[in-house]
C-alpha cells in the first residue's frame, strides 16, 4: 500500500494520482457514466424444466449501455459482472450444459462483441477464528482457525420468495448441507443483493453512496452458533484477474466520516485502469441490525494474491462464462477484533459492498457542513470589516485627549 500523504481539499487518497481522478471525472460523460437513470429488471431464470434454480439476472439498461449482474448460488455464491455498450444485449443460458460437469459456454451475453468489461466475484469460504489469546488487532490470522465452511456445500433457499421488485432486491439464504455440530440450526448466511436505478445513499449503515452503475451486496451471518466464546468470522473472496496480474486493492483515506461515524477509509478493488469494474466497501462490519458506532467492528482485508483454481470451491457460473483456463486471485476479509463489540453480542454480523462499473462513487462534504463553515468563517470577517468601517467613518465619540480636570 502506498502511503497517503498528499493533503487535498476534501480528502487525501492513495489512488494513482489525483490528476487522473480529475481527468476521469471530466471524461466521465464519454464512458459508461453520464446517463441519469437505468431501467433495472430482476429475473430469476428457471431451468429447462421450469424449476427455479437460483440464477438471478439483473439487467440495468441505460441509454447506450447495459450492465448485467448474474448472481447465483449454484456452487459457491458468485456474481458475474458484464458491461456492454448497447441497450439491447441479453443473457442466454444453456441449462443442460450449465448443470453438466463441463459447463463451459453455458452462459453468454449476446452480442458478444458489445462486451466492454466482464469479470466475476466468488465467495468461496466462511472462516472462523478463535481470538481468545490474541491481543494484536492486525494479526494474520486473527486467532486459531477452526475448519472453514465451504460455501459450495451450502444449500440455499428459493430466491423467488425473497424477490422484492419495489426495492429491486433479492436474498440468498443458506446453511451447510452437512451440519454435524448443528451450528446453523437456528441461523443462516444471507446474501442480500440490491440493484439501483439512480444515485442515492441508503439510511442503513455503512451508508455507501451508490450510483446507477452499481449494485449492493450485504452479507449477513445471523443466528449461527460460534464454535468458541470469542469467535471472529472471515470471508474468502475470489476474483478473476484481467490479465496475468491480479486486480489492485486500494485504501482511500478521507477526512469525511459523516455517513459512517469514525470510519475514515474506503477500500476498493479495481480490475484495471478506469473505466472498468470495481468493488467498493467500508472496512467496517456491524454486530447489530441497526448498526451504529457502538456496534462497529473493524474489517481487515488481506492483500490480493494469485491462487490456483483447484483449491478453491469451483463455481460453475464462472466456468460457464469464462471457460476453465482462468487465473484466480483471492483475498480474505476478517471481521472484528478480540476486544470490543463482536459477533458474540447478538449473534449477528453484517458487511456491505458495492459492485459496479465505471468510476467508483466518491463521498463529498454535505451541504450542511459547507454552509456551517461558510457562516463560521464569514461572519467574524464581515463583522470586523463592518465594525472597522464604522469606526473609521462613523462619528467620533472618544477623544485621545484626557480631560484636564
Amino acid at each position, binding site marked *: 500500500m502506498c502511503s497517503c500523504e498528499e493533503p487535498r481539499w476534501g480528502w487525501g487518497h492513495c489512488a494513482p494520482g489525483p490528476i487522473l481522478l480529475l481527468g476521469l471525472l471530466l471524461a466521465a460523460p464519454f464512458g459508461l457514466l453520464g446517463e441519469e437513470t437505468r431501467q433495472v429488471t430482476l429475473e430469476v431464470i428457471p431451468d429447462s424444466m421450469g424449476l427455479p434454480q437460483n440464477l438471478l439476472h439483473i439487467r440495468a439498461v441505460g441509454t447506450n449501455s447495459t450492465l448485467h449482474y448474474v448472481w447465483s448460488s449454484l456452487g459457491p455464491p458468485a456474481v458475474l459482472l458484464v458491461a456492454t455498450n448497447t441497450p439491447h444485449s441479453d443473457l442466454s443460458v444453456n441449462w443442460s450444459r450449465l448443470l453438466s460437469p463441463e459447463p463451459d459456454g453455458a452462459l453468454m451475453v449476446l452480442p458478444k462483441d458489445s462486451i466492454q468489461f466482464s469479470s466475476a466475484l466468488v465467495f468461496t469460504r466462511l472462516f472462523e477464528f478463535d481470538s481468545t489469546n490474541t491481543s494484536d488487532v492486525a494479526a494474520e490470522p486473527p486467532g486459531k482457525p477452526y475448519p472453514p465452511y465451504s460455501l459450495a456445500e451450502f444449500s440455499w433457499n428459493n430466491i423467488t420468495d425473497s424477490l422484492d421488485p419495489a426495492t429491486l432486491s433479492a436474498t440468498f439464504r443458506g446453511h451447510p448441507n452437512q451440519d454435524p455440530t448443528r451450528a446453523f440450526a437456528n441461523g443462516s448466511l444471507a446474501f442480500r443483493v440490491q440493484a439501483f436505478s439512480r444515485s442515492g445513499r441508503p439510511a442503513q449503515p455503512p451508508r455507501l453512496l451508490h450510483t446507477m452503475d452499481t449494485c449492493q451486496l450485504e452479507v449477513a451471518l445471523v443466528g449461527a452458533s460460534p464454535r468458541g466464546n470469542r469467535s471472529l468470522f472471515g470471508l474468502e473472496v475470489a476474483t478473476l484477474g484481467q490479465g496475468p496480474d491480479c486486480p489492485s486493492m486500494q485504501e482511500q483515506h478521507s*477526512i469525511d466520516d*459523516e455517513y459512517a461515524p469514525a470510519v475514515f477509509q474506503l477500500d476498493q478493488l479495481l480490475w484495471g485502469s478506469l473505466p472498468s469494474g470495481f468493488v467498493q466497501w467500508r472496512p467496517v462490519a456491524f454486530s447489530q441490525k441497526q448498526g451504529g458506532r457502538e456496534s462497529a467492528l473493524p474489517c481487515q482485508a488481506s492483500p490480493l494474491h494469485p491462487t490456483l483454481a483447484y483449491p478453491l470451491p469451483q463455481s460453475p457460473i464462472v466456468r460457464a462464462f469464462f471457460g476453465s483456463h482462468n487465473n484466480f486471485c483471492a483475498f480474505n476479509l476478517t471481521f472484528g477484533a478480540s476486544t470490543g463489540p463482536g459477533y458474540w453480542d447478538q449473534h449477528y454480523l453484517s458487511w456491505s459492498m458495492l459492485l459496479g462499473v465505471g468510476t467508483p462513487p466518491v463521498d463529498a462534504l454535505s451541504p450542511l457542513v459547507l454552509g*456551517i463553515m461558510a*457562516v*463560521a468563517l464569514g*461572519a467574524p470577517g464581515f*463583522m*470586523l470589516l463592518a465594525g472597522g468601517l464604522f469606526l473609521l467613518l462613523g462619528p467620533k465619540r*472618544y477623544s485621545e485627549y*484626557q480631560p484636564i480636570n
Partner: protein
Amino acid sequence: MEEEEEEARGLLADGPDDAGRDAPAVPGALPALCDPRRLAHRLLVLLLMCFLGFAIFAMIIRLPFRLRLNGWGTIIFSCFVCIGQVIFALGGIFNAFWLMEFGRFVFGIGGESLAVAQNTYAVSWFKGKELNLVFGLQLSMARIGSTVNMNLMGWLYSKVEASLGSAGHTTLGVTLMIGGITCILSLICALALAYLDQRAERILHKEQGKTGEVIKLTDVKDFSLPLWLIFIICVFYYVAVFPFIGLGKVFFIEKFGFSSQAASAINSVVYVISAPMSPIFGLMVDKTGKNIIWVLCAVVTTLASHMLLAFTLWNPWIAMSLLGLSYSLLACALWPMVAFVVPEHQLGTAYGFMQSIQNLGLAIISILAGMILDTRGYLFLEVFFIACVSLSLLAVVLLYLVNRARGGNLNYSARQREEMKLSHAE
C-alpha cells in the same frame, strides 16, 4: 522600586503620620520576604496560591458553586475539599458508589469555589503588576497537577494493588486516600494564605474588605457589555477545547492511524505544552499589554487548529501543539481582563459567574458532543467546534470594537497602563 513606593504611599494615606506626602512612611525594616509590599513576598504568596491550585486540580471535577469569599471562606472551602476527598476514598473502601458520588459532590462544592478564591486572591495581590504572569502560573500549576494525576494515580494503584495483593474497591479506596494527601497540602496553603493576607492587611492597612467581600447575585445586573462579551468568549472557547480532548483519543486512532498510546500522548500535549508556556505567555502579556489582541490571536489560532484537524490529514501534532499554545495564551490574556472592567467589590461575583457559566457550558456541550459524534461522526463534530470557536471570535471582534468605540482600557499597552496609573496617583 519607584512604583512600589508610590503604592505604599497610597495605601498608607490614612495613617497617623501624615507629615507631608513626600516622606515615605516605612513602618520598620522588614526582610524582603516578609514585607507585603515587596516583590519577594508577593512571590511567596504566589507560590502558595499555585500550590493551592495544584492540589485542587490534582483531584478536581468541575461543579458550579459560589459562596462567600474571604480568608475564612477559603479555609472552609479547603476543608470541604479534604473532607470530600476522604468521603470519596471511603466510598471506595466500603464499596458504596453512592458514597463516592456524595464525596465528589462535597469536593466539588469546595473545589470550584476555591478556584474563584484563587482568582480573587490573584487580583487582590497582583493587580497592576504581574497579573497576567500570575494567571499563567496558576494555570500552569493546575495543568501540572492534572498531568501528575494522570500519570501518578495509575502507578500508585498498581503499587497498592501489589502490596495489598488484590485489585478491587479496597485498593481503589486506599489509592484515593493516599492521593488525598495533596488536599491536605491545599488546606495548609489556604491557612498560610489566610494568615499572610491578614498580616498584609494589618501592615499595609489594605482595605481587605473591598476585594470580594460578599457575592451578591444582584451584582449580575451591573455587569457591563464588555464583561458579558468576555463571558461569551470564555464559554464558547472552552467548550471547543475540553470536550474535544475528552473525545479525541478515538479520533486520532481512527483518522490518523495512531496507536492507543500515541493517541493518548497527543491528546495530552495540550496540557503538557500549557504547563511551561502559560507563565511565559503571562509574562509576555504583562510586558506588552493589549490583552484583546492576544485573545484574538489565541482564538484565531484555535480556529486554525480545529480546521487543520477537520479538513486535512496533516500530522495532528502540529494542530494539537497550536491548540496547546493558543489555550495557554488565552488563559493568560482573558481572565485578567475581568479585573479591568469590574470594580473590586464585584470581582468575586464576576469570577464566580464566569466559572459557573463556563462549567454549565461544558456540561451541556459535552453531552451534545457525544450525541453528535454517535450520529454524525467526527467531521461534523469538528465543524460544530469550529462554529463554537467562531462565535467566540465574533465576541472578541465585538469586544474590540466596543472597547475602541467607548475608549475603554482593555486593550491598553503596558506603557499606557503605567501612564494611566501615574496620572491617577497625582
